[in-house]
């Protein structure tokens, strides 16, 4: 973990802004069509429909606020932890869906992302995950040593 402290401050800030921006974008797209998002959640066949609807209204705003937290550095740790937890849960749900042979057509980026090919998505998502975990580890160190 000592390598993290050799990375200059402004790089972390850029990471904050980019990751925060991605989640604000993802959240905004879903805010525009909550009914579609509710259907996408339902496609995973993990949660009952009613809970899916509740999440469809709530999660996008959560993403937006957490993204803002990252960019504005307000309630930073809170936002970061929530996003990491969300991504982890989402990963688990996707593994479960794949094992069950379900084909999920849309998720995080709503129907806007249907044009992208697999490798682009793959790269973006792995990068997000790495960024989130690094930011989390780094800020925990910073806050613990502060």
């Amino acid at each position, binding site marked *: 973990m000592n390598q993290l402290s050799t990375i200059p401050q402004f790089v972390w800030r850029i990471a904050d802004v980019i990751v925060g921006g991605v989640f604000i974008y993802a959240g905004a797209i879903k*805010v525009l069509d*909550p*009914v579609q998002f*509710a*259907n996408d959640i*339902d496609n995973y066949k993990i949660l009952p*429909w*009613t809970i899916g*609807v*509740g999440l469809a*209204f*709530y999660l*996008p*705003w*959560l993403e*937006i*606020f*957490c993204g803002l*937290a990252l960019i504005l550095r307000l*309630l*930073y*740790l*809170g*936002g970061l*932890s*929530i996003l990491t937890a969300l991504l982890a849960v989402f990963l688990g749900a996707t593994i479960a869906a794949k094992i069950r042979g379900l084909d999920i057509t849309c998720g995080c980026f709503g129907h806007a992302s249907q044009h992208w090919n697999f490798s682009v998505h793959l790269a973006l998502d792995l990068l997000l995950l790495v960024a989130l975990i690094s930011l989390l580890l780094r800020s925990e160190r910073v*806050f613990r040593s502060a």
Partner: protein
Amino acid sequence: MVRQVLIVAALAFVPGLGQAIYFRDKVSWQSPVPASEMVTVAQARAWGGNAIWVDARPDNEFARDHVPGALSLNEDRWNELLPQFLAAWSQEKKVVVYCSSQSCNASREVARRLRNEAQLKNVFVLEGGWEEWLRTNR
């Protein structure tokens, strides 16, 4: 950190709740299709002569068999079939659209077009479709 998590979670809840209230008519919390747009076979039959039955299935399926008195209105020949449907329609009628089964989408599409394009009120989708009608009638 926990305090921050709770604050962010609570903050997000406010617009989320606002949106849920704003969209309350557009989505049903009980089922994927808005309850106000679905009708059971029993309910539709209870409407008697007040109901117009619409078969949204392709021509060959309609020709094979259909609900007695039902009119064919599908998306393959929408422009051709719509006028004769409208000739039978009047404002107090309730339109019941069906296709093969619960999972078939044609009835929802036809119902949507009748509501949005022709701007008709009282357009319903038959729960269970043709399969359900057969089951309860034969």
